[in-house]
């Protein structure tokens, strides 16, 4: 029995499925659960396993390739790249992403998630980010 990183989607979610796949795989990449050199399953296989259209998976893989996370190869799926730390995005882009974070928080509140729960999740997330910054600084030195 093989266990390892897996991707989950919700077909009834308002978020497009290709975004869910890209977000899910990106999360695994950021967390280091997928290491450089590892292979992702071919587009057709992942589409079959998730019972979705091939183009949806292809779109998700293209997003990840554009962001520099993976390299796409014909019939061999995608290979995880050793992605270099990108330069900080432009001020406008940064504002856009932070705005998305605020909108997501607002959506959570609008859908009835208690504010305290959202705050504790954000604090946990902040703690995780801080922990990942310190080892990286040591590596850079």
């Amino acid at each position: 029995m093989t266990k390892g990183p897996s991707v989950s989607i919700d077909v009834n979610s308002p978020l497009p499925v290709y975004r869910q796949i890209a977000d899910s795989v990106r999360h695994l990449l950021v967390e280091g659960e997928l290491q450089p050199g590892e292979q992702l399953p071919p587009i057709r296989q992942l589409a079959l396993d998730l019972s979705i259209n091939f183009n949806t998976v292809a779109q998700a893989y293209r997003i990840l390739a554009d962001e520099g996370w993976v390299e796409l190869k014909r019939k061999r799926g995608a290979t995880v790249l050793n992605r270099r730390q990108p330069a900080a995005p432009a001020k406008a882009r940064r504002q856009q992403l932070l705005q998305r974070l605020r909108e997501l928080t607002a959506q959570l509140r609008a859908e009835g998630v208690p504010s305290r729960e959202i705050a504790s999740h954000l604090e946990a997330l902040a703690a995780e980010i801080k922990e990942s910054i310190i080892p990286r600084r040591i590596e850079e030195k």
Partner: protein
Amino acid sequence: MNLLIIIVFFVLMVMTGVAMYSVPLLSRSGTFFGTTVSSEFRTSDDARRIVSRYRQSVIFTTAAEIVATVVIALYLQIKVFAIVVISAAVIQYAVGIAALVDANRRTRPFARPKPSSSRSASLVPQRRTLPGGTLLLVGPLFIMVSVGLMVVSRRTLLLAETYKAAMAGVIVGTLSSGLLVAVAWIGVFRTRQGSANGSAGTQSESRKLGYFILVFLAYGFALQNAALSLLTSNIVTNPTARRFGVFSIVALTVLGAMVCIVYFQFRAKKLAELAPSENNRSDGTPDECWKWGFIYDNPNDPAFLVEKRIGYGWTLNMGNKWSWVFSAAILATPFVIRFLWFRN
């Protein structure tokens, strides 16, 4: 009346009856007459009632068919006998399918709750291998190519019509066994793996069974057509071999199929006991897309082949346009062979 013909029909009827009788056992224990159920459902009173009702129809029809065939064989001419026996076989199949549809309808209320809208898939690339190796899979094609070469090498010694008839056997054998080999290969390498953390790396037991059934059928078709071609082209000249050659191959194939059915029954029981996770795994197909429990039609599923719900192996997703192309090609093949190969 030729006793040999009566025996052949008798064996075929009994075999069909046994196969139909075994249907409830010839599928993953997570599915029951084409509906996903809990693995405990199979041993419940409701399940027993459904199985009993289904089997009564099968036993009654098979018994009636056998009695009718024997009685008619004693009094009627061979031409009438053939028509009656073929009609009886059609009725046997029709009643079997109707009983299956009825059992599927009765099982629906006991279906497992519909799975949530979330789906998962493993990101670990699969390493699937052909059970038994590549040689086992290409064996039927090897047999047909060898027979084809033997027939071609005797072309100058044969009448044009005899040569055409012998080669027709080679073409039909190659296409039919090739089709089964192709389906077996697609089933292993190009189908859904089942669950996110389940059988990604290895072939599950039910898939292996499905694969071996297809390979067995491919050998059966190849051997029968090879024997017919060898007899037609007079490559086999021994009178005893000529008289019993095809019959013994047909009989051995039938016998082999019966042994397999019995073996799969025991195997299925063991599977149910040994691998509850395997039996409870989802095949990734919603119940409502299974018409009568054995026809899968889901336009939202990109799969070309999906695991069968009744029996082992794979079946077409009729919601995929390529399944229609494939079905049309299979139906057209005999006519194409008839009109192109025997044009003159």
